[in-house]
């Protein structure tokens, strides 16, 4: 037989038998106590690393988003500040202008009032003067009349004269 030519290629039943038993024992023992915990630990670690990496990526993205948000906020704040300054300036300008206007109008009013008061006073003074002149005239006239109408006849003449002046309709 071919196998008997070379003893090297003739398998011994003994080694086959013991090898089968040994391999099965080795396989089950190592699978339970070495390969499974080992592969599980490696897998868990890789999973952990992967998770950590993806988490880091997410965080990076979050930070970037936050940064851009911050920038937007900052830009907005800057804009608002500019706006506010502008508004304040406008308000101030307006206030100054208003104040100016108000002052001017007040001044005008005061001037006008003063004018009116002056006119009134003037008129009053004029009236007063007129009245005084009038009363002086009356007084003078009275004195003149008193002197002219010292006698009775002249009085009657004058009354007649006046009476003629009054026309009864």
């Amino acid at each position, binding site marked *: 037989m071919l196998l008997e030519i070379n003893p090297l290629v003739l398998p011994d039943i003994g080694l086959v038998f013991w090898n089968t038993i040994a391999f099965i*024992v080795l396989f089950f023992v190592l699978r339970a106590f070495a390969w499974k915990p080992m592969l599980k630990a490696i897998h868990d670690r890789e999973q952990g690393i992967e998770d950590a990496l993806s988490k880091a990526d997410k965080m990076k993205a979050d930070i970037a988003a936050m940064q851009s948000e911050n920038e937007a906020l900052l830009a907005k704040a800057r804009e608002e500040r500019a706006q506010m300054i502008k508004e304040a300036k406008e308000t101030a300008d307006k206030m100054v202008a208003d104040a100016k206007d108000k002052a001017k109008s007040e001044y005008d009013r005061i001037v006008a009032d003063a004018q009116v008061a002056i006119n009134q006073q003037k008129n009053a003074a004029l009236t007063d003067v007129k009245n005084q002149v009038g009363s002086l005239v009356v007084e003078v006239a009275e004195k003149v009349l008193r002197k002219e109408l010292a006698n009775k006849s002249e009085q009657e003449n004058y009354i007649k004269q006046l009476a003629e002046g009054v026309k009864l309709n």
Partner: protein
Amino acid sequence: MARMSVKSLLVATFSVFTMLFSTVSYANDTPQHGTPAAEGHGAKEFDVTETILEHIKDDHSWHLWGHTTLPLPVILYSDKGLEVFSSAKLMDEHHEPAVYAGNYNYKTIEGKVKVVKADGSLDKEASAKVWDFSITKNVASLFVSIAILLLVFLTVGGAYRKRGVKSAPKGLQSFMEPIVLFVRDEVAKPNIGHKYAKYMPFLLTIFFLILINNFLGLIPFFPGGANVSGNIAFTMTLAVFVFIVVNINGNKSYWEHIFWMPGMHWSMKAFLAPIELIGVFTKPISLMIRLFANITAGHILVLSLICLIFIFKTVFASAIAVPFAVFIGLIELLVAFLQAYIFTMLSAMYIGMATEEHHHEAAHH
């Protein structure tokens, strides 16, 4: 300059020794022919083949040093029942095979326990009835390798349990992890695909069992010295396990591709079926022969180089033989890893082929 001189020195040494050996062998030839009686029974003619085979073959005792051997238990099962005795009983005080009277008269012939007749000749008929389950040198070496594997990997496995996932591997653990990752990422994943996890324990066990036995085989003395992974029984057993795993896990499309190749004319299908069926067996057989032949060839090569010293019968031959043996030994170190890798990778490939899902199947019909 230095390199040049080393080179020329090597060339000079080589030529000197070549000349020396030829003269020595001539010198040895003449007295042998002249006085055959002088050689006598003590100094036998040196038989290279026998010496090498003796080192490669299995044995019933484990040679330690000089005349000291470790006797191993012989376990025989025959029609007369089971018997266990020490292999020391099969040897006389001169380390020559002796007859041991058990259920039959046993004697080791060419390293194997055989039944002998009263006159000491081989009894083939009775020998066929005896099943030899002895703990031979290879079996003992196998057990040593398994003890080493268990010791190493139970420690490593325990380390993962104790140290947990968060901490980095340490010591032996960090030495073994890259190898395990290599098997997973270079062997299992590319060849099997996403279902690789199920086959990882099997592939790892095969890989490390072959690797440790390849390494132990390279150690020339106890606890190495046995040629387990270069033994056809060992490779056959592993190949049978691969065969079983592949065919148990073979899916519908695997069997369909063997017996009724899809997308072919019916006559082609009928023609391919027997070829594919043979392929089912040739795959594990190729695994068996590849590992056996590679490891055995390496051992034979190293032994042949060492035997040069005894062939030329001069210690100067070692100047050539030893460096070459060291060189081949280094290559063997590579081969030890390579063959473990190839065996595992091909096993993974066969498993991958058997469990592959053919999505393109629909296109055939």
